[in-house]
């Protein structure tokens, strides 16, 4: 699962001799994949290089310089290209550091929930019978719980923090992984190459990890991208409601929450982090869509 965002779907199209070049070409031909990949890569670079890219310290308060509007306003200046918040902190720097929080939570949540969901789903699909009954019961139980409500309740019990949010979401968002892994494994279970491996006396972990997993990875990668976007939005929601990442961390959801008192007179306070969130989630969804097209048999890419 370490390759969620890397183009491992490659092997989906078995064109060994030149599969790299063919993959490259079909990636370029797929517009949504290209755009999504471009945006996410640049946001990833921004997150990695935040200390060097940010013009100011995102935590440095300057009450003499509060609510400076962005550069396109008459009173705006290029010292603070996106203005400052109510405590005089540079908005662009906070936005740049906020990319780290969003991407970190999105990816780590997808990894945790992917691990849980894939394990449960593959076991349920492979063994069927009682194992399947237990996993299906867990799954329906999980689906009966409203994510935001449960996350809010738990966060208010334990106390919100980045770690809490990540773990909570990771433990809550595994349902789609489990559903997809289960049905994909059920289809594979009776494939003759699985039987051949069983007849050879291959150990169970070999069959599950080397024979089953690579063949369902394509579908799981698509689910993973969707869950990354989902987790980022949920983090913003929880932070907005005050139960997620705590101030003074520059989470985008928190920035929107802190700006909501000003939204009628200085709307940029919430539109800027809001747009950032929109662009990131859109890019991830475009990527997921593109990956699905690429991994679909026959390729639906125009």
């Amino acid at each position, binding site marked *: 699962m370490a390759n969620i965002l890397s183009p491992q779907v490659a*092997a989906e199209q078995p064109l060994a*001799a030149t599969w790299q070049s063919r993959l490259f070409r079909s990636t370029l031909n797929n517009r949504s994949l290209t755009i999504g990949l471009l945006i996410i890569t640049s946001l990833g670079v921004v997150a990695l290089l935040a200390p060097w890219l940010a013009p100011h310290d995102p935590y440095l308060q300057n009450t003499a310089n509060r609510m400076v509007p962005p550069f396109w306003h008459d009173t705006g200046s290029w010292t603070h290209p996106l203005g400052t918040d109510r405590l005089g902190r540079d908005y662009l720097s906070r936005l740049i550091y906020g990319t780290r929080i969003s991407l970190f939570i999105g990816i780590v949540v997808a990894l945790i929930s992917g691990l849980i969901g894939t394990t449960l789903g593959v076991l349920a699909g492979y063994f069927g019978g009682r194992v399947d009954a237990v996993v299906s019961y867990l799954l329906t139980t999980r689906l009966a719980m409203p994510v935001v409500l449960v996350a809010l309740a738990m966060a208010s019990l334990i106390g919100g923090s980045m770690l809490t949010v990540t773990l909570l979401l990771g433990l809550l968002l595994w349902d789609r992984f489990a559903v997809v892994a289960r049905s994909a494994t059920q289809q594979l279970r009776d*494939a003759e*190459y699985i*039987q051949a491996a069983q007849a050879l006396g291959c150990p169970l972990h070999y069959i599950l990890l080397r024979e089953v997993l690579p063949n369902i990875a394509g579908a799981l990668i698509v689910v993973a991208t969707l869950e990354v976007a989902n987790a980022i939005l949920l983090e913003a929601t929880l932070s907005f409601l005050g139960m997620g990442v705590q101030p003074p961390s520059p989470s985008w959801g928190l920035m929107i929450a802190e700006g909501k008192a000003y939204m009628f007179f200085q709307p940029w306070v919430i539109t800027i982090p809001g747009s950032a969130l929109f662009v990131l989630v859109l890019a991830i969804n475009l990527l997921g869509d593109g990956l699905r097209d690429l991994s679909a048999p026959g390729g639906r890419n125009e």
Partner: protein
Amino acid sequence: MSSVAHHLDPLALELCALSKTFKLGGGMLHKSRTLKAVNDVSLRVPRGQVMGLVGESGCGKSTLAKMLLGLTPPSAGDVLINGKAIVNANQKALARHIQPIFQDPYSSLNPRQRIAQIVGLPLRIHGIGTSKEQAVKVEEMLDMVGLPKRAAQQYPGQMSGGQRQRVAIARALIMRPDLVICDEPTSALDVSVQAQILNLLLDLKDEFGLTYLFISHDLAVVEHLADRLAVMYLGQIVEEGTREQIFTAPRHPYTQALLASALTPEPGLGVPDIGLGAGQPDPTQPPSGCAFHPRCPVAQPTCSQQAPTLSAIAQTSDQATRQGNQARVACHFA
């Protein structure tokens, strides 16, 4: 006598009263039904021979193959390979003696692995040789099944059906098993490729001294390949004998109908009328007495009451019995 025979010339494969029963359905509201997929099958396959197993689809051929491979435990009875029982045997130890070649070469190879990985898998799992020795063995094996060297680096998706079946054969034979279960290995292939694969199987059999259990519903294929033949109907063996005995003088009415149903290459003749009437009965509710009597052209009242036993045909000589050449048939009137 039979224990002496074991020491002198151990049978490659012996099935003793093997049965497999499945429970179907059986929820809270339904009563579960039982399906006797394989019912009291006994069979002896001498070393170095090709035993053909024919019958309609759904007669239990594939379930039988799964039990031999250790993929499904039998409900009753024993499987002896080289005189040793395999029930509860270690799967790895079993895999050294018996290997499968499956029907569909499009689903029997993992599409995510290169041919070298697929063929070398048995060696890796069983820890035979260093990785260099394994690579050499894989190359030799590919050469033996008539695949070029460069095939090793290809993926199954880049190969034709015939080539894929060659890969499947290479994987089955790389550990030099004694016994190979061929589960309709040519039925998914083009007719032009079928002959190549069959001849390859025959060549390899001589080269490695293999014993085949060849499962098929294609009589032409079996006639080309098999030394002996067993005919299955609804989970039971109804007739067994040498190829000549079965093809020239079939005793059981079902075998006769099966032979009559083989299509001829002559155009215009259409599908032959085999006089069997309706299809196979529901295997969860097998007919009383002889399972074949509802479709049998020569059925008598006693057939619906008394099940015939699979017994040796009288005139086979003592010599033939000892060599396992005896013919058996399960019919009151054969």
